[in-house]
C-alpha cells in the first residue's frame, strides 16, 4: 500500500464518519452534508472574542487535529501498511491522545468566556475519570502481544481476537474511547447546556477545524479499537485494508449511535463510575490476561 493511497483511504474514512455523524444527530442520511457544512463554515463571517489569549486560541484547534492525526499515524491499515512503525506505537497512541485534553482545555480557556471556560475544566474533570481506562486495557493488549508495536498487537490476534480474549478490556476501552471523542453521553463539555461549551467561542474556519478534529478523533479511536481488539486487518477473502476500513466504519457508527440512546452523564457521575467500577474492572482484566498468558505457557 503506497502512502498516497493511505492518505486517500484516511480521507475517505473521515468523510464517511462525517456523514454518519450527521445521520446520527439528524436522523437523515445525506451524503453531501459534510461538504456543504464545510463550505458554509468557511464562507461564514469569523467572529472572534474581544480579548482572547491569541496564541492559545489559535493553537487549540490545530493541536486537536494534530493529536488525532498523529495517533492514527502509528496504527496499521494492512499488513506492513503503517505510516510510522514505532517500536513503542501502543504507548505513542496514548501520548498523542493526551494532547486532545490539552487542546480542549486551551480552547476552553483562551477565549476568556465563562461558558467555554467552565466546559474546558469540566472536560478535564472527565479526563481524570476515563484516562486510566484508555491506558490499562491497552496495557493488557500489549501484554498479550508481548510488544509495544501496533503491528504486533494485530499479529497476536491471529488465532483469537482480543474481543474474545479480553472482553472486559474491550468494553472499557470502547467506552473510554467515546469519552475521548466527547461523544454523547460524555458530551457535557461541548453540550448546549453551556452554549456550545468548548467550541462555543469558535466561528468560521476555526470552527471547521474543530469539527474536523472531532471527526478525525472518532475515526482514529475507532481504528484503535479495531487494531487493539477486533483483529485489525485480519479477515478472510477480502484484502486487509478493506477489512480494516469496514470494521473501523462499523465501530465508528456504533460509537455515534449507541451514546444517543442514553441520557447525558454529568461529570461527577462519570468520575464516580470510572473510579469505583472502571479502574477495578480494568485491573481484573489485566490480572485475567496475565493468568491466561501463564496458563498458555
Amino acid at each position: 500500500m503506497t502512502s498516497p493511497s493511505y492518505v486517500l483511504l484516511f480521507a475517505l474514512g473521515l468523510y464517511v464518519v462525517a456523514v454518519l455523524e450527521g445521520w446520527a444527530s439528524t436522523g437523515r442520511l445525506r451524503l453531501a452534508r459534510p461538504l456543504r457544512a464545510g463550505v458554509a463554515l468557511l464562507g461564514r463571517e469569523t467572529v472572534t472574542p474581544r480579548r482572547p489569549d491569541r496564541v492559545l486560541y489559535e493553537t487549540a484547534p490545530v493541536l486537536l487535529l494534530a493529536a488525532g492525526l498523529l495517533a492514527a499515524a502509528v496504527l496499521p491499515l494492512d499488513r506492513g501498511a503503517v505510516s510510522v512503525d514505532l517500536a513503542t506505537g501502543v504507548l505513542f497512541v496514548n501520548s498523542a491522545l493526551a494532547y486532545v485534553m490539552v487542546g480542549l482545555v486551551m480552547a476552553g480557556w483562551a477565549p476568556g468566556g465563562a461558558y467555554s471556560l467552565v466546559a474546558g475544566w469540566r472536560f478535564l474533570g472527565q479526563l481524570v475519570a476515563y484516562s486510566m481506562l484508555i491506558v490499562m486495557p491497552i496495557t493488557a493488549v500489549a501484554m498479550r502481544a508481548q510488544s509495544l508495536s501496533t503491528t504486533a498487537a494485530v499479529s497476536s490476534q491471529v488465532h483469537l481476537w482480543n474481543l474474545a480474549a479480553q472482553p472486559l478490556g474491550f468494553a472499557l476501552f470502547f467506552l473510554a474511547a467515546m469519552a475521548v471523542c466527547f461523544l454523547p453521553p460524555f458530551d457535557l463539555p461541548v453540550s448546549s447546556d453551556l452554549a456550545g461549551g468548548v467550541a462555543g467561542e469558535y466561528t468560521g474556519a476555526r470552527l471547521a477545524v474543530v469539527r474536523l478534529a472531532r471527526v478525525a478523533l472518532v475515526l482514529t479511536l475507532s481504528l484503535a479499537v479495531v487494531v487493539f481488539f477486533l483483529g485489525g486487518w485480519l479477515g478472510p477473502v477480502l484484502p486487509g485494508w478493506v477489512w480494516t476500513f469496514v470494521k473501523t466504519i462499523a465501530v465508528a457508527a456504533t460509537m455515534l449511535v449507541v451514546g444517543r440512546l442514553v441520557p447525558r452523564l454529568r461529570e461527577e457521575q462519570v468520575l464516580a463510575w470510572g473510579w469505583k467500577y472502571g479502574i477495578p474492572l480494568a485491573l481484573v482484566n489485566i490480572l485475567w490476561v496475565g493468568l491466561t498468558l501463564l496458563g498458555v505457557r
Partner: protein
Amino acid sequence: MTWQLLSVAFFGLLAIWFGVTVFRTSSMVRSALSLLGSMAAVGAMFLAMQAEFLGVLQIMMMATEMTIMAIFMVMYMMDPGGLGQMDMTHQKRVSVAAGVTGALAGILLALLPGWGPIVRSVPGPARQTHDLGIELMNRSMIVFETAGVAILVAMIAATSVAIARRR
C-alpha cells in the same frame, strides 16, 4: 551525528525558554501550559537522543500531569478560572538564590563526573524498552518503589492538610 547534536541543543534551548515563560506570565493556566511546553521539549530531547520509549513516555505523562496541575492550582489559589492577573513569583531573593544554586549544581553534575565514552551504536527501541523493564523490576526496583510510595504519602498528606478541620 551533527543533526542529532543540533536537535538536542535546539530542544534544550526550547525547554529553557518555555521554563522562563512560566514566570513571565500573569496567569496560572498560561504558566502551567508553558511548563508543559518545557517538559515536552525535554521529551523531544530524549527522542533526539534515540531514547524512544523515554521520549514518548515523557511527552505523554507531562500532558496529563501539567493540565491536572493547572486545574488544581486554579482550584486552590485565589485565581478564579485562571483568568486573574497574578504574579507568578514570590520570595524573590530566596528563589533567585535557589535557582542559581540549582543551575550551578546541574552544570557541575554535567561536567565533573566521568560519563565514559560516547556510545556509537544505540540498541534498538524494542531492546531499550526491554532492558528498561528489566532494570526497573530488578536492580532499581527498591528505588522506584520508595519514590512511588513517597509521592503517594505526600499526596495523601497534602490532601489531609488542605481539608478544613471538622468540629
